[in-house]
């Protein structure tokens, strides 16, 4: 069968069939997502297998109920919501590429900013996955759709989060999709079709993590969360985990040879992390001081988290691992050696990423419930099913990210172009 994109036949006048060009764009993207080297196939097979294990676990949870988790009426949110919270940070953190690229006109960052936008899309997909996994009745999902169900807006912070997360997803889909489509057609993107959305996405990125923090910090019955410092801490940790992940991702992309770029973006992101890791440690110290020096009810959860209480210590190893990793990443980022040696930088990013993952996941969600509102100390450790579903959702996120980068970068660099597109000059349309 003749491939309409690869034929050398004279191009049809584009004005006649813009819809057709868009269909060809989608079909080219689809074909690109399913073809690649054996490495690509192996990677996708492994991720698909993990995602299927998660799907299977979720199916059992749907049938037998959430008794297959180890959550309880005392600790009513667990691993799923912990991962959701971290995922929102990752999505928001990607904006640390957009701000330098568009607000500070950093041209090096501009060359790679599409990676941040694609990461945001995949991260939001992960967040939605964890929310669905945590719902007792996902069949009733439509109840939460604005205009269709009964949307308790503006009173419920969860409705704000629905708007914030889905809005952020749509904005980033539009920006990345539009830029790719223009490259595919060999046309320069028109500023009015994407620049306003880019600036909107910057504010929106801040809002998704602020609103997610407000979910917790607005609950008067949970002293551990009921702190004005929660939203600032969320943003600081987002601007650690986001840049850390992107730095690793940039190395992978460069190693794959799909995009060539200078060291500027990595340097900029490292500089951002040098500030945010310290900011986060400072705010942690401030929270610990307030809780422990004052003592009383507000200190109960902090004491349980860091030292255990009533002979129960389940979270102690988690939080000290997180603190150790966060301090290590801070030290590594300031060592002169890290500026010249990639391996040290990557190690710092890995420490920061895992440290924040634990601190903002299990270290933030679980102590909100321990001790309970009636001061019962009931512990929580995730069940096998919860780990399966969690691994599955992350695998799904990586599948989306891989395909998005593969297609996105091929369009970005002009490898996949419409038949009637003019040739690229110096890497630009």
């Amino acid at each position, binding site marked *: 069968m003749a491939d309409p994109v690869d034929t050398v036949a004279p191009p049809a006048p584009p004005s006649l069939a813009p819809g057709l060009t868009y269909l060809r764009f989608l079909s080219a993207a689809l074909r690109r997502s399913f073809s690649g080297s054996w490495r690509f196939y192996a990677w996708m097979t492994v991720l698909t297998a993990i995602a299927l294990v998660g799907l299977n676990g979720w*199916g059992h949870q749907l049938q037998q109920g959430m008794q297959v988790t180890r959550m309880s009426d005392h600790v*009513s949110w667990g691993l799923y919501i912990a991962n959701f919270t971290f995922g929102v940070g990752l999505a928001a953190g990607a904006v640390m590429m957009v701000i330098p690229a568009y607000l500070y006109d950093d041209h090096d960052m501009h060359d790679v900013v599409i990676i941040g936008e694609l990461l945001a899309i995949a991260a939001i997909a992960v967040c939605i996955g964890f929310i669905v996994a945590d*719902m*007792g009745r996902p069949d009733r999902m439509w109840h939460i759709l604005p205009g269709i169900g009964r949307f308790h807006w503006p009173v419920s912070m969860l409705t704000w989060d629905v708007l914030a997360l889905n809005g952020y997803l749509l904005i980033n889909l539009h920006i990345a999709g539009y830029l790719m489509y223009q490259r595919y057609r060999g046309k320069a993107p028109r500023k009015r079709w994407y620049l306003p959305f880019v600036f909107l996405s910057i504010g929106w990125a801040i809002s998704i993590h602020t609103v997610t923090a407000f979910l917790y910090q607005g*609950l008067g*019955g949970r002293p551990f969360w009921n702190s004005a410092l929660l939203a600032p801490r969320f943003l600081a940790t987002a601007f650690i985990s986001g840049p850390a992940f992107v730095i690793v991702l940039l190395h992978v992309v460069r190693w794959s040879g799909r995009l060539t770029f200078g060291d500027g973006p990595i340097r900029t992101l490292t500089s951002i992390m040098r500030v945010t890791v310290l900011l986060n440690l400072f705010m942690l110290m401030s929270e610990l001081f307030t809780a422990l020096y004052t003592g009383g009810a507000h200190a109960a959860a902090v004491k349980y988290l860091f030292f255990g209480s009533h002979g129960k210590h389940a979270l102690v190893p988690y939080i000290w691992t997180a603190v150790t990793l966060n301090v290590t990443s801070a030290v590594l980022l300031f060592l002169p050696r890290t500026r010249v040696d990639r391996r040290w930088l990557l190690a710092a990013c890995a420490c920061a990423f895992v440290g924040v993952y634990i601190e903002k996941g299990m270290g933030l969600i679980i102590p909100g419930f321990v001790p309970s509102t009636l*001061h019962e100390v009931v512990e929580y450790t995730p069940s096998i099913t919860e780990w399966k579903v969690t691994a599955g959702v992350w695998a799904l996120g990586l599948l989306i990210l891989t395909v998005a980068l593969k297609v996105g970068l091929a369009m970005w660099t002009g490898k996949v172009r419409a038949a009637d597109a003019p040739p690229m000059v110096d890497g630009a349309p």
Partner: protein
Amino acid sequence: MSGPTRRVALKVVGATLGAGAFAYAGRPVAQWAASVDIDDLLRRHYKELTADELAQILRRIEDETQKKYGVEVRVEDIPAQDGVSFGYALNLSLCIGCRKCAEACHHENNHDRPTNNSYIRVLEMQQGSFDMEHGTVDYDHAVPAPGKYYMPVQCHQCDNAPCVKVCPVEATWKEKDGIVVVDYSWCIGCRYCEAACPYHARRFNWRAPEIPADEINPDQGYLSNRIRPQGVVEKCTFCLHRTRKGLLPACLEACPTGARVFGNLLDPASSIRYVLEHKRVYVLKEELGTRPRFFYFFDK
């Protein structure tokens, strides 16, 4: 075998294995999807139902209970009465911590038997302290124990209820007689209300409740003690299927010491009004601004 043939064979084997993996992994989800009741899925919110639609839903719930639990029940929708606003008070000087109230709740409200669920938790508190950190619910000895007092905690039916505020789908709301209810057929099971409640008043159905047919209370309210579906949140409703008909809550009737006082706050002659006017009452965690309708007092 030539190259292309082998490649085709590999692709066929790969595709077959892949399809098999998808089918196997997805089977529980498919089975669950097939079990979802379409009528239940598409029905509208309680407040949007016409009288006919609601009547049909009540009959359907009765039929389903018959099918699932093998028992004939009557599910009613009992509206709040005009001129009634409920309040509850508990005399801590009289409570001996026997937990008869929790047990009565367990039976009256068709709670899951194996988990021994109840809307009431009784704390054994240290004399001389209001701090629940020094209390425990896990006491297992003769009561009342020396040096202790007992504090049962259940839903406080707050006038400024955090659980109602946070619900993203309005599956829980405050009725005009002050009772906070849940539409179990609308709740999406996000458990945000459970996180928001400062009194540990809400429970989640981690699985479908198990109750032997002969132990099921057949007098059921749509918004109260009907058997809850799996995956939704439930709570104390001051036994509205009883109290809206002029009966007393099951926990009050079970109390052997007369520590519980229940009634209409708008009726000046009611015993709850007497308690509020003559005893030094307090509410739990008043500083949170939840404005409970559940009061505690000591009278000696």
